[in-house]
């Protein structure tokens, strides 16, 4: 596989679940292990055609965000991970979203195997959970309380110190 044959793709086309097409250059796409794997597979087969990668559970508005992230990180791909400018950008990037978007973005990052984005989203959600009350957590993440009032009171009493 080390032979540098003619097959080298410069761009791929990614299709969102709602059938929108995105042309992505290889360096940007490589930020996602899923896309990178597809490209590597095609290159090994020696295909010269532009390939189409369908992402059956990422909508186009979420895909736009993932690609925006990948583009930014591709620019810094040769820097070390501790670039302050990039860190600042990451933070500003996530700050804009509501939790529904953040949820979808997290799942898309997981599905597309974009580890740094997944980690970033999880850390961001974790940081916001830290300061929320149980009631706020349920509201924001749209979680139904399936405990009886007695059960809930028991759990709280077990660890009353954590609720002070």
């Amino acid at each position, binding site marked *: 596989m080390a032979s540098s044959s003619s097959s080298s793709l410069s761009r791929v086309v990614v299709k969102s*679940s709602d059938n929108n097409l995105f042309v992505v250059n290889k360096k940007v796409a490589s930020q996602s292990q899923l896309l990178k794997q597809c490209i590597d597979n095609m290159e090994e087969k020696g295909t010269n055609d532009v390939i189409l990668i369908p992402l*059956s559970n990422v909508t186009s508005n979420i895909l736009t965000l993932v690609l925006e992230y990948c583009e930014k990180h591709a620019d810094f791909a040769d820097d070390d991970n501790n670039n302050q400018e990039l860190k600042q950008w990451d933070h500003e990037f996530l700050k804009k979203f509501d939790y529904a978007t953040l949820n979808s973005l997290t*799942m898309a990052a*997981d599905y597309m195997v974009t580890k740094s984005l997944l980690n970033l989203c*999880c850390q961001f959600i*974790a940081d916001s959970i830290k300061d929320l009350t149980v009631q706020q*957590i349920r509201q924001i993440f749209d979680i139904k309380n399936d405990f009886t009032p007695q059960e*809930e009171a028991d759990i709280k009493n077990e*660890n009353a110190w954590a*609720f002070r």
Partner: protein
Amino acid sequence: MDEEIIPSKILLPELWMEIFSKLPAKTLVRSRCVCKSWRSMIDNPSFISMHITRFKNNFNKHFLLSFETHNSFDDDQFELKIRVRTMGKFRKREQILGLTFSADDYHIDYKGYVDGLLLFGRYYVGSYDLFLLNPSIRKSIVLPQIPSSPAGRAETVIGFDPVKNDYKVVMILFPIRLVDHTFPDSIMVYEFRIGEWRFNTGLEIPHEWFLGENVLTKGVVHWLSFNLFLQLPLPKNYTHIVSFNFGTETFSYTELPGDRSDDYEKITYPFLLGDSLAVLDISLDLVDVYHANFCIWVMTKCGGNWTESWSKRDHKVIGLDTFGFFQEYKYNIRNLLYVESIQKFLLEVNGKVKSYDLESHKIKELESSDGCYSMIPYVESLLLCKRLEEECHDCDSD
């Protein structure tokens, strides 16, 4: 594409686990009451071990835990104060837990630490038991009665068995040889998941000589000692590391590095460097009598002779004043901790905490206490969160 993925609007459980593994213990204890699925995710043993691993691998989550014990004779109370502080910032501290025991529990004794859990021995009038405490979730549990009280001295340790994927408390019963009777060598093992004590006999138990401070890493606990076949009188310098493996439940001996003959004095302390056992070796320079040698060795292999088991990490020449300090307090220095972020050792001498700067070789006093003092590199964990009958006696925080 051969993978077919079903779209989903709610976050997958694996992703919640990922998020939870970044949260502190207190938030997780609170989050258990959000809904049933959150509670079962947080209580899941595989999540608890994932959380521990993540916290251990993240240096920002490492704290220095210290505790002091005080006996108050006025009201027959006994107090254990637990504090945590950020590694390297010694002066900034926060009390997380104060435990008060009644006068009946007249003495407690620190035995060991693993993954956020502290093990203590508790002496009553005429009886003795062991209890575990997880300060980050304020839970404690008393272990079942020890099946046989040791006839002689016993050493109690706690650690993780990577083979069974479980925690163990082990009591090593040192053999006593009397004229007409020999007590068998054995260890008593308490496995968390089984919840009972059992005996393991027929082991070659090390001599109890100087089994004091120990270092636990990667499922093995190490002490400074001598080899198994040594006869009295004891040599001046420690000659071996004796190690107990929590997985195989066996002891092994590793020769200490360098020349350890009685001709000249070596001052040796074990400590943890990253996740390896290291020893600090200080000795007078035989050629240049105005200086001393300061050497750090890291154990690369457990068992065997020293040339194959150690690698030299650091070697410095130090002044006689520094050497004098270590010589004067040779038997009083405890709890040697290396704090990588500030390149300093922390150590305790007779209830005082001091720092030793590896660059300048300056020794500074940081804190003193009139009670009994101990410090431990600490990460939070959720161990004991579930299946806990017994609560802390009395918890308050400030």
